[in-house]
């Protein structure tokens, strides 16, 4: 199955092209005229994972919006707000996660150009950076604990631990997704549809990862530049 | 089946309307200045509700009576709707509902968007599990300082600070005593969890939230004794967190407020006993 980059794209175009115009429905005047591709099969539509991940991101955004509004209200609600000094290791966190966004983007584009080994390599690199990120978060926690700052020490520290924990959990979820993708790189492409699914999954993972990156930046700014 | 359903719906409608129209279970008498406005607004609203309720149920009943299927092989009217009707009933409904909404803000505004009138008599109410503590400022008309470290549920429920001279004449009592026809401002606090101040005859309630001091004002217009209940779940004895509000003629009220803390309770109890609860 030495499919070349060109032929994969041709297949992808064929499937997307046929499905997007609404197929053979007589009244398909909009893209939403439903419609699968040609033939009598239930084809996988590439948009599925993309729609799914954006929907999931919407709900995660709501979670962090709720916590952020709690942060803002709590900041204003009394006079016991003593903002923490930022543990320096968080600069490492920020750098690492930014770089990991770049690496996952390279990995995704490699896959779309059917450069499997590059895809796997950059994916693994992203995962390693993800682990480093989580490690740096843990280091920040240890740093604060050494200073005697724990989750209930003051409201700002509460939010620090809370935000980093919830974000970190989502990063761990992302790492699981990366691990899953890495395992699947071993599987040779066995069908056009299988390959499309792989690309779809990798794209979704990349979107999710970029989201976590952006979210980290927001939290970082919120915790240490709006306090 | 259609006819029986229609009759059932109509009977339910009539019984429901009767339950309201008969006034058999109705508000207790309003005894605050803003009370009659609340009652008026309620009457307007419930009449609108009653008309809408009756019209919809009668319409539903009529439809299931008249349009039940029968053996004559006729088909239903094929119609996807009527845009003009949609617009019409949407606009009418919107006008009625928004008007009610706007009208329904007036009494709220008078109580919450305007400060208590000048010359209001200020009282502090501190709720706790499961009692009310009303603090009167005493002869000097100034509230003394309080602190949680001084609280003793038996002897000093609001935690008056003994070094503050202003608090020496403060009276703390479970009973809320107010003068008739004089604006009263309550400062509402809580020691532990959220409670809610509820005297049905006053036609308002207000939560007492720990960490907050919430102001609310009213003017009682009828002398008498009324029950005070808690209207926010506060624990296992929420249902018997009971006290009384006593509305006194101005002279009796003034005399009571002049008393020293040690004498307040006895006189207040005498007054309480001399009044009856309303007839229900």
């Amino acid at each position, binding site marked *: 199955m030495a499919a070349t980059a060109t032929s994969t794209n041709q297949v992808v175009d064929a499937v997307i092209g046929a499905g997007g115009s609404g197929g053979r429905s007589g009244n398909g005047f909009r893209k939403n005229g439903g419609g699968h591709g040609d033939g009598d099969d239930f084809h996988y539509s590439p948009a599925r994972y993309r729609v799914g991940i954006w929907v999931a991101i919407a709900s995660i955004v*709501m979670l962090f919006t709720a916590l952020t509004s709690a942060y803002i209200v709590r900041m204003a609600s009394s006079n*016991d707000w003593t903002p923490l000094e930022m543990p320096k290791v968080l600069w490492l966190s920020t750098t690492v996660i930014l770089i990991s966004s770049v690496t996952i983007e390279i990995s995704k584009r490699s896959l779309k150009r059917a450069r499997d080994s590059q895809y796997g390599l950059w994916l693994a690199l992203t995962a390693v950076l993800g682990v480093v990120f989580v490690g740096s978060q843990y280091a920040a926690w240890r740093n604060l604990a050494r200073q005697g700052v724990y989750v209930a020490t003051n409201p700002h520290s509460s939010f620090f631990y809370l935000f980093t924990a919830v974000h970190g959990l989502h990063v761990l979820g992302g790492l699981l997704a990366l691990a899953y993708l890495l395992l699947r790189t071993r599987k040779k492409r066995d069908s056009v549809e299988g390959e499309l699914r792989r690309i779809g999954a990798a794209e979704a993972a990349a979107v999710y990862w970029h989201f976590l990156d952006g979210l980290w930046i927001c939290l970082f700014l919120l915790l240490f530049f709006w306090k | 089946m259609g006819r029986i359903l229609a009759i059932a719906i109509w009977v339910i409608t009539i019984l429901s309307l009767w339950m309201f129209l008969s006034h058999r279970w109705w508000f207790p008498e309003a005894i605050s200045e803003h009370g009659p406005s609340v009652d008026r607004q309620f009457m307007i609203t419930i009449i609108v509700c009653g008309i809408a309720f009756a019209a919809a149920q009668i319409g539903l009943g009529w439809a299931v009576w008249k*349009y039940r299927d029968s053996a004559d092989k006729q*088909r239903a009217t094929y119609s996807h709707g009527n845009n003009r009707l949609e617009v019409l009933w949407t606009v009418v409904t919107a006008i009625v509902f928004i008007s009610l909404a706007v009208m329904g803000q007036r009494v709220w505004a008078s109580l919450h968007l305007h400060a208590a009138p000048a010359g209001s008599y200020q009282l502090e109410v501190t709720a706790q599990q499961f009692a009310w503590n009303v603090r009167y400022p005493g002869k000097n008309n100034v509230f003394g300082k309080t602190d949680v470290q001084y609280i003793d549920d038996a002897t000093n429920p609001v935690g008056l600070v003994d070094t503050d001279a202003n608090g020496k004449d403060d009276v703390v009592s479970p009973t809320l005593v107010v003068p008739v026809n004089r604006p009263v401002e309550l400062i509402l606090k809580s020691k532990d969890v959220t409670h809610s101040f509820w005297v049905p005859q006053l036609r308002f309630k207000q939560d007492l939230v720990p960490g907050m001091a919430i102001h609310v004002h009213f003017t009682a217009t009828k002398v008498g004794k009324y029950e005070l209940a808690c209207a926010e779940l506060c624990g296992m004895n929420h249902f018997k967190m009971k006290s009384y509000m006593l509305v006194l003629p101005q002279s009796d009220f003034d005399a009571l407020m002049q008393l020293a803390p040690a004498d307040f309770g006895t006189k207040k109890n005498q007054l309480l006993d001399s009044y009856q609860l309303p007839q229900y």
Partner: protein
Amino acid sequence: MAEAATHGEVHRHPAPTSFIRKYIFSIDHKIIGIQYILLALTSVIIGMIMSVLMRINLSWPGTHIKILETLFPQGAPGGVMSGEFYLSLVTMHGTMMVFFVLTTAPQGGFGNYFLPIQIGADDMAFPFLNMMSFWVTFVGFIVLVLAIFAEGNATVGGWFTSLGASWAGGSGTVGPIGGWTGYPPLSALGKVAGPGQGAGVNLWIISIAIFCVGSLLGALNFITTLLNMRTRGMSLMRMPLTCWAWFTTAILALLSFPVLLGGGILLLLDRIAGTSFFIPGGLYVSGAPVPLHTGGSPLLWQHLFWFFGHPEVYIAILPGMGATSHILSTFARKPIFGYRAMVFAIFAIGMLGFFVWGHHMFMSGMSPYSAVAFSILTLSIGVPSAIKTFNWLGTLWGARIRFTTPMLFALGFVSLFVAGGITGLVLGQTSLDFFFHDTYFVTAHFHLVMGVASIFGMFAATYFWFPKMFGRMMHEGMGKLHFWVTFLGVYAIFIPFHAMGMLGMPRRYSNFGEYEFLKNAHGLVLFVTIAAIVTVIVQLLFYFNFIWSIFKGKKAPNDNPWEATTLEWTIPSPPPHDNFAGIVPTVYRGPYEFSVPGAPNDYIMQTEPEGAAVQAGLGDTSGNGGNGHKH
């Protein structure tokens, strides 16, 4: 379930063979739907038992109930319910019903089963996640049941006490006692604030948090499936209104449950980690100051909770509205009146539902200016609800109504929704809420809409889709009897609640005997209790009918016994594993083409191609859905 292997069945995954794969850990949306329905049927029994116990306590305080003495010796000593026992019933009744009944069956149950089929898909977008959504929800249910035992039993409670003071259990109640709304500081302070505030509350929070995750997984699936997997010709404006309802409900769930999850995390931290998100300083509880907490805001919880809580009630009712529209049209043999307006109304209710949460908080001490804004927005939501009611009546005008059991329940829905919804006009006004907040008037309102109308939607859906799910009909006679007693019964229970509210009767009181102003309520209280007991007992008939009919019900005469038009009625009953046996359906017309003049039957399936039998140019000029040509 003879699979249609002869049709060249092609599915993303092969049909399962082992019992566990087929019925337990199934990724088939149909099985998952039934699992949700069974979970709801179990939860509602628990909820109903709790409500009957509450009614008995209110009507005949001091009644000895032997079994309570055995099960809950501390909470109900001598078999007599204590005040805290009653409050734990209030809490768990609300939690069980709102989450595990009204947020499971309508959406996760019927939605899971029928959304993919009605849009012509072979399954949900993410079948594995779909299975996870059910099992996560189920774990949440188990944790909630555990909350009952952790509080109810000193031994089990003792296991938790070793985890710390805030985990102390064994108060003898049936769980936490903060109400389903769990306001702090009461819910945050722990056992020091009273019995039932220990392990039960922690487990309650954890159960709800788990439930949030399960719900979100479900919402993800619904939205992606609907956007991505509609079949040929199934444009958005040709979808049955059930699909629109499930779609909107999923969006509401997606955006509101995370906020509840956030609030729950903060509350749990306040309880077990010593934080002060919701607990202010200066508290004095049960004889001692509380030095540990300072600076928190009890109102913050209320905002977070109700930002979720209000969309939640629309999550509970919208699927019922969708089912009602669908079933009314089917048995009236008429297109739904104003399809476009109905879609608009569903969406408007859903979206506006995010901006009115403050009407639960008028008396809370929040800004009175925001209260005014919330009040006006709240009454605006009445407008799309009214549109739907008018359109239901419009659907019946000129109809040929067939009074089957599902139709009776759908008609009942309309009646009950009007009865319950109309008092929203009273409660939504700030000036009137002065009197009615936290009284039985509120309880009347939300029970009529959520506890009754919504349930009627579910009953209607059950009787309607039972033949499709199981290939047999439910017994019609039993169904009609069930309808009649329940319809009259629920009115008998909840209309008097308004009268109790008029007297000023507060909510969540375990006993009304302390206050003179409530003495005229006793007759009402008794009347309601009798009605409640009768109504609850007759539900046994429904359970019997449901279970018996699965095995012994009259076989459905064909795949479309109701002569309906939507895609689920084009496939066998029960459907094959991949729904459409490998053949992609094509949709040519809207979902409610009944009584089309000139057509051979009084219904035309959505999959029926245009043909000579139907004259051209039909479908009305108002562009409201017709056969799809016009829009």
